[in-house]
């Protein structure tokens, strides 16, 4: 029984619509929006965060489902990992479903949400490399109206959430092609990713898009490797690749995400990659090779 931090948040608002949520945040600008609370409440309980107030998003039913809009899916930010892991969702966006199923034990998946994963922006967030590979964008509701921005702009801090804004929807293009998400944890039970890789095929644009998670603060895109391998694929035919090409793609992508150290400024040879980085690069290479192989299988 925990006996501490009981009165951490006396000021709790429970809006039932996005407008109410925005209004609640406008009324208490220092309040923190909370959805599943799987990361946030742990920080509160351990005393790392003492929010002046909480705005609970759990009762806003409009962001707990998804809808179709112009060849894209508009996913509510309140979608739980458990919901995204179900087969109907997996048929729509397979890689996001796989990431959701891999995101921790059932208790966490039942509570944790897509929006929380994005807003929390933990390097190990499992849905983030998938969203990066899908080139998804987020719709934000705020006091000055709604706006849409790419997920990567939000994650990198190029265009952060402004005061009073709430993550409302995530727009994900529907590609109708295989996608994969693979994650290495080093154990069999649920765990945080050592590295994760999402690969999506975009046959309409004849593209392969790949993102690597957990190795850097934000998901990384090996763009050159993507373009190179997309050029090798026979998009009108079998869409298969030789094992050597898959291996080369894996190594290309891994070397892009975990680059060799730069040569020293004084002209001496570059220092060697530390063994842990070599191992991480090998892990990413194996994941990327397997992920692309499964997407093309």
């Amino acid at each position: 029984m925990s006996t501490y931090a009981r009165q951490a948040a006396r000021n709790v608002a429970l809006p039932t619509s996005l407008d109410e949520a925005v209004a609640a945040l406008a009324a208490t600008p220092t309040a923190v929006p909370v959805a599943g609370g799987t990361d946030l409440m742990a920080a509160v309980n351990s005393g790392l965060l003492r929010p002046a107030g909480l705005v609970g998003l759990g009762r806003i039913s409009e962001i707990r489902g998804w809808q179709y809009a112009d060849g894209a899916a508009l996913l509510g930010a309140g979608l739980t990992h458990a919901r995204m892991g179900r087969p109907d969702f997996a048929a729509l966006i397979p890689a996001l479903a796989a990431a959701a199923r891999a995101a921790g034990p059932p208790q966490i998946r039942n509570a944790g949400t897509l929006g929380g994963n994005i807003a929390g922006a933990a390097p190990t967030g499992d849905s983030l490399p998938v969203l990066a590979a899908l080139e998804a964008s987020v719709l934000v509701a705020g006091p000055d109206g709604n706006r849409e921005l790419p997920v990567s702009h939000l994650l990198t801090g190029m265009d952060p959430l402004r005061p009073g804004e709430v993550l409302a929807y995530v727009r994900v293009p529907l590609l109708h092609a295989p996608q994969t998400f693979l994650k290495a944890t080093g154990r069999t039970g649920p765990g945080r990713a050592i590295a994760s890789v999402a690969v999506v095929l975009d046959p309409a644009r004849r593209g392969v898009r790949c993102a690597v998670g957990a190795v850097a603060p934000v998901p990384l895109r090996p763009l050159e490797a993507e373009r190179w391998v997309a050029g090798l694929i026979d998009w009108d035919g079998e869409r298969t690749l030789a094992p050597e090409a898959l291996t080369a793609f894996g190594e290309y992508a891994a070397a892009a995400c975990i680059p060799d150290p730069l040569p020293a400024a004084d002209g001496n040879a570059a220092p060697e990659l530390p063994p842990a980085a070599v191992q991480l690069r090998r892990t990413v290479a194996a994941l990327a090779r397997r992920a692309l192989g499964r997407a093309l299988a």
Partner: protein
Amino acid sequence: MTGPDAATATPAVGTPTPVATGADEQQAEPHGIGASLPTTDGLAKAQGTYPYAADLWAEGLLWAAVLRSPHPHARILSVDTTEAVALPGVRAVVTHEDVPGDAMHGRRVADRPVFAKDTVRHHGEAIAAVAADHPDTARLAAAAIHVEYEVLEPVIDPERAFSAPPLHPDGNLIRHIPLQFGDPDAVGEVIVEGLYRVGRQDPAPVGAEAGLAVPRPDGGVELYVASTDPHTDRDLAAACFGLEQDRVKVVVTGVPGAMGDREDSGVQIPLGLLALKTGCPVKFVATREESFLSHSHRHPTLLRYRHHADAEGRLVKVEAQVLLDAGAYADTSADALAAAVAFAAGPYVVPHVFVEGWAVRTNNPPSGHVRGEGAMQVCAAYEGQMDKLAAKLGLDPAEIRMRNVMATGDLLPTGQSVTCPAPVGELLKAVRDTDLPPLPVDDDESEWLLPGGLEGAGEPGAVRRGVGYALGMVHMLGAEGTDEVSTATVRVHDGAATVICAAVDTGQGFATLARQIVQEVLGVEDVRVLPSDTDQPPAGAAARGRHTWVSGGAVERAAKMVRTQLLQPLAGKFGMSAELLTIADGKITSYDGVLSTTVEEELAGKELWATAQCRPHPTEKLDDTGQGDAFVGLAFCAVRAVVDVDIELGAIRVVEMAVAQDVGRILNPAQLHARIEAGVSQGVGMALMEDLRAPRGIIKRPNLTGYSLPTALDAPAIRVVRLIEERDVLAPFGAKAASAVPVVVSPAAVASAVRAATGRPVSRLPIRPQHAVARPQG
């Protein structure tokens, strides 16, 4: 975890009572020795209604908080409590100045201050404690205590402790044992060397430390804590309070998980001091972070080995250096070192053994008693050496072990003769000859849980299966002259029996066992075991299987004395001696069948009491060369591990652990299986993931996200293939302790299997993914 085959997989077991299944419901309640009695408090614990220390409450209680050091090593220049005392709601602040009695305490050596005075020696060491009328106020007040530190360079490498300036007035060397056995000049035809490292396993109890202290009108104090050794804890606390021992009472509340000496005195002494100072009840509930910072861990160990063998693979000589990182305080490190040195060669016959063992002080998190301490670390190393020897000689790993196993009558490297049953060869044979788990067939991947888990990245083509073996041993009861005595009282009244014994049931099942013993001896069905406190005579610590042996023995003796009181008048009436009467199924019958009456009838209206002690035969301290009869008894275990390894990612899944164990006699089959499964699971955790990392002496992530424990998906199928019941004549009932030895052997077995799967040396526990990937070509 074991699944339905747990009971069927034990055909060799003498007592055929199966684990309770639906078919048993028709029969009478199981009772007596050899039956699978369920625990009395199991249901309440499973339903969450069982009150643990954290659930206790008293009228007008205050809440305590402890201020802990953020530095692993620092000089304290000043402690200023004025701001904390002035906070509204704060009732008392105590520092080292407020300790009326001994400033230092410790289980073996009094070297640990109640509150740090001049120096802090580990991250999380207590500096002051606060009592306030709200837990948050207490925490805020603790944070408001201003401590001025002069940060010192921490000693974090145990190898540097020898030359580092002393961290403690007692010096940095806690114990050194240079064991010498045989001829130092002996040389084998084949020599293998290895360097092994074992990480810091945390006991990670389900419930964090908690307690309630209630002052008594006579100036004493009652401590309600989850102690596993109430009398020692009371004595330590009383000495620090400056009170007579009988004015301090330790009442044992439910124990939410114990892997050793639970409830470090760091909880109960500050609590008692605050209760005495304020005159109010004071409660403390540690956060998970505090729990990780304050309690004792398994000793991180560095081991260097050189094994000599002849061309047939028979061991000639074992040379070893064992270095235990004790952390800042001695605690039970001297005992752990004795076990590590004595068992450094394993359950093998080795004519010449030379081991140097050291336990040294560092500024790392404190180490202490965790199941199988000392024995577990050396097992990982000597079994690694056996694998190396097998590879060098081209022998099967099981075969080379078989050629060297010890048996009753062989000598330990301490010169002590193994007098108890030591069926090591039989155990190995049992795990070696049992069927391997089936390989997943290619077309049925959905059934195959790949390393990496259900949604992991596992690819069947990259998975290699490995099979590994390990043998190991632990000693039972305290070693080296520890006085292992226990006292129990059995009272029979109105057809029901009560057992009064201070032995704590930490979940190991002692209370159930005590009931079974009384049922067996007296034929009384209704047996109650009273909760433990220090008003009862001492029973010692719940560790090293001592309660099964010593307290179980005391209960049996007391029950037999009551039995004599019951039968004597009957026997006199019929003109025969009491020995000719037997009690079975609640009936008293004479040898010739003339007399037949029920226990119930004879007990009606009577109240019989008896108190008895059990004290096993004494042991002696290891001498200057590590020689001496230091152990009362030994328990052995063999494990065969089967693992799947993704050799590209280094992900490991333990598929199956087959266990054969030397148990002496099965007293409660269901409980025994549970103990073995728990031990194997803990061992798998040690092998694959449990390591409390403390770079530069600071525990970076003291929580259950940073410190991973095995989950249901990580836990392997555990098959108990053989339980050997050769009774140990010294032990009451002939039973051996069962909990510790699977913990000792399992990590070594997993490492052995990973070696077989990957071809990598695997010399570090837990095994990290980078040590389980196949070497890239070239």
